[in-house]
């Protein structure tokens, strides 16, 4: 397998893995029982998806799937910065989720026609889940944005917190450009166009305002992360680091 393809698969895998890990922090602490269950469902889907990518790599490289999430250090992770951001309050979590879902859904849509048979199979399976996530998070953005004064303010703050990580999603790095040239993934312009249309219409219906100026952060796709990721890994990799080489 080419290095570029491997990096691309890791980017998909790590993004879903890290966001799933973050959502797992909510389990048992959700604001309402039904929402606790729903957010855990999304965590299960995302980690399940990540596992499919890791297995693909593991099969090719002849190692265990857990090597990827459990043994690499921060600089080797390729997840987008958005996914490692702290849960904050429920408004931050929902906004982070909605932004990710807009990107993820249309990205998967492009990948259903991937020239790589295994990726296209994963995308076809995952897009059904992602479509559910997108409607769930989109509905909640609208409900809370257009709910009470307090919920509106919290969602607006959530949007301002998370919009910083929006642009990175759609800005292809070198290995993505390579994968596009081999028809492994969809067309970036199309993904961005569809995702932005969805994003804008929901934000509008939610009566929220996208800030005119913000600083777009990037780097996650190339392994340049925020400080948060180290702490996520300290938790996630604790067992494998403390007791190396054992079966659980």
């Amino acid at each position, binding site marked *: 397998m080419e290095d570029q393809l491997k990096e691309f698969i890791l980017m998909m895998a790590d993004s879903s893995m890290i966001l799933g*890990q973050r959502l*797992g*922090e909510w*389990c*048992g*602490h*959700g*604001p*309402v*029982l*039904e*929402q*606790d*269950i729903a957010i*855990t*469902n999304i*965590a*299960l889907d995302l*980690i*399940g998806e*990540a*596992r499919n990518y*890791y297995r693909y790599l593991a099969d090719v490289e002849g190692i265990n*799937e*857990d090597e990827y*999430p*459990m043994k690499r250090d921060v600089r080797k992770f390729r997840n987008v910065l958005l996914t490692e951001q702290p849960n904050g*309050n*429920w408004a931050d979590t929902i906004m982070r989720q909605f932004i990710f879902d807009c990107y993820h859904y249309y990205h998967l849509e492009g990948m259903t026609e991937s020239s790589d048979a295994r990726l296209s199979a994963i995308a076809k399976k995952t897009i059904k889940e992602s479509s559910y996530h997108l409607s769930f998070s989109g509905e909640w953005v*609208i*409900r*809370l944005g*257009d*709910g*009470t004064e*307090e*919920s509106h303010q*919290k969602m607006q703050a959530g949007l301002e917190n998370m919009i910083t990580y929006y642009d990175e999603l759609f800005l292809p790095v070198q290995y993505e450009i390579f994968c596009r040239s081999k028809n492994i993934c969809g067309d970036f312009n199309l993904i961005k166009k569809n995702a932005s249309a969805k994003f804008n219409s929901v934000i509008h219906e939610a009566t929220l305002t996208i800030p005119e100026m913000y600083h777009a952060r990037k780097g996650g796709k190339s392994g340049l992360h925020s400080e948060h990721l180290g702490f*996520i890994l300290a*938790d*996630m990799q*604790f*067992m*494998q680091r403390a*007791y190396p080489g*054992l*079966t*659980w």
Partner: protein
Amino acid sequence: MNKIDSLEDRFQSRIDKEEKIEARDWMPDGYRKTLIRQISQHGHSEIVGMLPEGNWITRAPSLKRKLALLAKVQDEAGHGLYLYSATETLGISREELLDQLHTGKAKYSSIFNYPTLSWADIGAIGWLVDGAAIMNQVALCRTSYGPYARAMVRICKEESFHQRQGFDILLTMCNGSVEQKEMVQDAVNRWWWPSLMMFGPNDSDSPHSAQSLKWKVKRLSNDELRQRFVDMTIPQAKILGIELPDPLLIYNETRGHYDFGEIDWEEFRQVVGGNGPCNKERMAARIKAHEEGSWIREAAVAYAEKKKNYEKASVA
């Protein structure tokens, strides 16, 4: 015979005939109260029980175990939901139920006030705590109140899966390194006695039991259930190759059951009374989740109202 007597007699004779009582049926006040107390306590236990295990979701040692644990804790949330719904059929709202939990008026199972200190605790909880819960719940599938019995049937299927999963975690570790096996032994040492306490006080000290058995709200007594659990668990401990922390555990040929040592009832009273190792943390976590959810619940109501108006406006 006065009218009240005849209603109660008729009610009892339906129970004696194993008929299910439904939400709309007449029932004695005491029966309703007992059910609300028991089912809500059961529901609260599912919800508080998410916390000690949820504690290990971010640290689970493999993808497989992480997914299984997430799904398990989510199942417990689902159980809480069924049970709250069953309690609501008796005329009490979820808001009131949660209020009773948060003010300490309602109890939950004392077991969830113990800490999860190692990954083996996740296995031990599945094996012992879900195992003990199953003993209770299988018997409750035949409880006299229809909505409760039906909730139990759904729940039991998932609980036995949880127990197998917990046992599998422990078995995998027992087949591993010396360190892993020690971790299992330590976890079982800590969880064994609290698991036996899950069945509640001895029958001789259980004030509500006789009436509950007559109403068939309970089907087996605390001591009967506890004995069944001990008898079931010992052969499984042998497969794991671990010791249970009770020198008095021995098979009694005459009784056809295992004898076991005396439970530390003072510890049980302390934990139920709020002085267990994690009571404060568990309640604080539940209250925090609920309070931080209030703006979300308010917004959902406000939005639903607005939406009705939007629809009216668009029709007009």
